[in-house]
């Protein structure tokens, strides 16, 4: 392995394959709830996609299927060009920890581990040695350079979420999925987290897919999908909060 540069670029798409691709993905929850109904979707590398929609519109299921956390009933999911729908749980986990980063509303940091250990955990699990410069860069970048030895319980919500973002990036994944990343944060912390995500896309070329119900958050994305009843009903490039808000009100939720 060659020495990593201080600011490592993310692996560029060698052949231009999209980071994530969904084709005719349907997910039926027993007995007969169609959470996703024939969704087609392409997320190009280096783009920031927001997924919006009222509760029960299928946005979380879309995220779970795209990330390999859930398996579609029918259709294809390609992650960095590889079909993941047919893989078993262990193989999907292995693929996930290399190609996918996660940011959750509830942070989901491991309380027993320090910030630094939480961030490097995916690499350790994959049996890879953490690159110290890269970890250092990430933690500085998310503003936690001075808190390496702290435990999650000793951090504020915004700090925990930023640690979770650093953890999502540590394996240089093809895509970072964020599920309501600002849902549990105050306005100022939420703004910091959204700024950070935006900067990661702009500076590092990171692909980000974010589920949110907040039009202001979605307005930071390059593109916003609006979902209803398991289908993508609208796709807006360079959306504004006002337009997205109006669109959601039209769908019956503010």
């Amino acid at each position, binding site marked *: 392995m060659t020495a990593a540069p201080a600011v490592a670029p993310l692996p560029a798409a060698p052949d231009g394959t999209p980071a994530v691709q969904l084709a005719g993905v349907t997910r039926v929850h027993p007995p007969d709830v169609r959470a996703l109904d024939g969704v087609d979707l392409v997320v190009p590398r280096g783009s920031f996609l927001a997924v919006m929609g009222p509760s029960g519109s299928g946005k*979380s299921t879309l995220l*779970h299927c795209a990330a390999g*956390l*859930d398996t579609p009933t029918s259709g294809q999911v390609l992650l960095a060009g590889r079909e993941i729908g047919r893989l078993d*749980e*262990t193989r999907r*986990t*292995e693929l*996930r*920890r*290399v190609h996918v980063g*996660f940011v*959750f*509303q*509830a942070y*989901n*940091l*491991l*309380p*027993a*581990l320090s910030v630094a*250990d939480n961030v490097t*955990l*995916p690499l*350790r*699990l*994959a*049996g890879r040695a953490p690159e110290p410069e890269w970890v250092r860069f990430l933690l500085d970048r998310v503003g936690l350079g001075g808190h390496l030895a702290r*435990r*999650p*319980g000793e951090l504020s919500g915004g700090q925990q979420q930023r640690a979770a973002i650093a*953890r999502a990036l540590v*394996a240089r994944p093809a895509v970072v999925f964020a599920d309501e990343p600002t849902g549990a944060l105050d306005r100022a912390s939420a703004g910091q987290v959204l700024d950070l995500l935006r900067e990661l896309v702009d500076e590092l070329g990171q692909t980000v897919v974010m589920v949110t119900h907040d039009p202001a958050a979605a307005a930071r994305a390059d593109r916003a999908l609006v979902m209803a009843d398991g289908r993508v009903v609208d796709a807006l490039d360079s959306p504004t909060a006002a337009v997205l808000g109006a669109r959601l009100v039209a769908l019956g939720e503010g």
Partner: protein
Amino acid sequence: MLTGLAAGMARRRPASLVAVLCAVLGGSAIVTGTGVLLESGLRSDVPAGRLDGASVIVSADQTAPVPEDLDVGLPERRAVPADLAAELAGLPGVTAAVADVGFPAAVLGDDGVAPADDPATSGHGWSSTALLPGPQVDGAAPQGDDEVAVDASLAAAAGLDVGDVARVVVDGREGGYRVTAIVRPAGAGVLFDDAHAAELAGRVDLVGLTTEPGATERVAEAARDAVAGTDLVISTGGDRGDVVLPGVAAARSTLVVIAGSLAGVPLLLVGFLVAGALGVAMTGQRPELALLRAVGTTPRQLRRLVALQATLVAAVAVVPGVALGYLLAGRFRALLVHIGLLPDELPLTTSPLPALGGVLLMLLVVQVAARSSAWRTSREPVTTVLGESRTGPREPSRIRTAAGLLLMAASVPLAVPPLLVRDALGAAATSMAGLLAAIGLALAGPALLRRVSGGLAGRLPARSGAPGWLAVANLHGYALRSAGAITTLAMAVVFVLTYAYAQTTVADAASRDGAETVLAGTTIDAGALGGVPEGLAEEVAAVPGVDAVVPAADTTVLLTGTTLGDAVVEPAGALVVSGDVSSVLDLDVRAGGVDRFEGPVVAIGHDLARSQDAGAGDDVALTLGDGTPVQARVAAVYDRELGVGPVVLSADLVEGHRTTDLAQRLLVRTDGSAATQNRLAGLAASWPGIAVLGADGGPDSSTPPEVWLNVAVLVVLLGYVLMGIANALVASTAQRRAEFAALRLVGTTPRQVRSVVRREAALVSAAAVLAGVLLSAVPLVLVGLGFTGRPWPAGPWWLLPATAAVVVVIAFASTEVPARLALRTPPAEVLARAT
């Protein structure tokens, strides 16, 4: 309002409350069972049996008063005045007043002695048939000194019918008697003409009165007035058994002693497990408790809520627990009877008192444990609780750690008694000291674990895999949770090692003392005849190869001493021998001698001599088994107290003070050759009812029955402890669902999660075994030094590896299964449910 909330919370967390449920259920069973034994020991009614037809019984007092304590039962029969029956016959309402006597009598059949409950008192006068419950007489009264009546079961066993000539060994003399009647019910015994019986017995045991219908109380009152001023007592109803079978009644104190010796250790274990299970349950509920605090629940209300919840669960558990307690006590009594520690005639009481006591005690334990487990959560600032509410790591408190270390230190002096008191009581301190140290470990555990695991994490090889690294990190990070698992498992190790090895060490020392004491290679037992028959000793002594013969018997003496400044009267078993005792017993005599053990003399053990401040040639005061106080000269002071007991009495001293004066067995010292042994066997064959036993002397040198008792107690308590530990581990692993899900979302494969859990289990069980052995070491070294003079206990070597194996199996099984179950749910779903 709180009740509904508590019930709702309890319903939402079934897994962790199952552990509480089981701990309380088992605990209430153990407490109730002990209570039943205690109550039975204090006041169970011995059935009046043979004399159930007598409404009122007048007898000597078969108890000895003890200052500021319960009376001690006197097992040996005390006589009543010979003319008492005549005096009482005149009382109004009395239909018959019968002077009852009892003496050794055994009926011989073609194939040996017809079995009787107590051959030493099977002979009675004919008039006692009037006192039988529902007597049926088939035949006529025996007359003169060559006729008998026998009860139906003896007649059947010996193949006798009216008119036959029965061979009966009466008071050691065999003779032929014509059978004049068969009497029912069984147990009536061998009945002789009254004048002949009185002559054989030489005393009157008691007077039984039959009364006109409904006159029992009136007659009892009148009898009480008639005997006022004497030490005679009047018994009616359930009290009669005590004076009919004084030996059985005296054995009740065994139950009190057993219940007393049980009280400490099981209560500690029950408290420990209930508190542990509640601690795990509270950890699982911290998020909810935090929310309740956030919406304005006061600390007091929160503790009440937690206590109420625990009480609800306990209320469900105590009902079957208490019922189980009665069953347990029944099984325990059966075991005691089987190993010979308790006479079969003694029943258990079945009053609701033990149940009430068990319920109250368990509710108290649960209340205290629940409130203290919620104490910290209830008192902390709301923000702290909320911040920690995801069952994250918590810092162990300093006070807790200090208290734990203090307890561990305090356990050392507590383990000292075996060095000073060489008896089972001294050894009981070993287990208590070990358990106290284990409780100290439970308190100080989290802080200690932090230290150790922190050091371990630093020293972990750089290339060790992620699961091992995570396991150590979890042990360190979740110190409270991990220490809970380690300390309960360590407690089980401490309990097994200290309890079992203390018992085996005492048993080993006792049996070695016993074996070294017995020079006699052979015992000839005459228990089936009620006593050694006349002429047997002389005939045995004449057998070529027999070097010495000493008749022996057992009785009870009451020793007055002081324990911790209080005067106590304690019954002790004592060997009765006479003649050249040194030819059959090596008592390891320190002063004096027992080669001419005659006259009113005793030999006493070294410890007793010290506590009585008496040496050879001095007089000691003691009370014989029938309550007679005597002064006896100390012929010798000996060392083998553990094997022989504290006192050996001369037959001359106790003559007239035992229910029968006959010896029960002969201690025979032979040249050890097979030929001599064969000659003895041949001789025994010509004496019906005589058994030749092997290398078994006065005191029992085979496994003492107390060992079986302790094994049974160990098994029951260990089962309870292991169940409690397994439940707590299952509950605490089940609570890790969210943690496992988070691990999986960052890329841990299910296999890796299981691997983490397994490594944790390995670390936990290793730490538990190590801690358990360390905590047991001091008490066991002390008990070894005290009893065997070596700094290690005696007992089977495999106990330690077996205990370690059980700990490992429990730790693995009770984390692997819930971990697998937790991994079945997709991680995203788990987290969706949690938020």
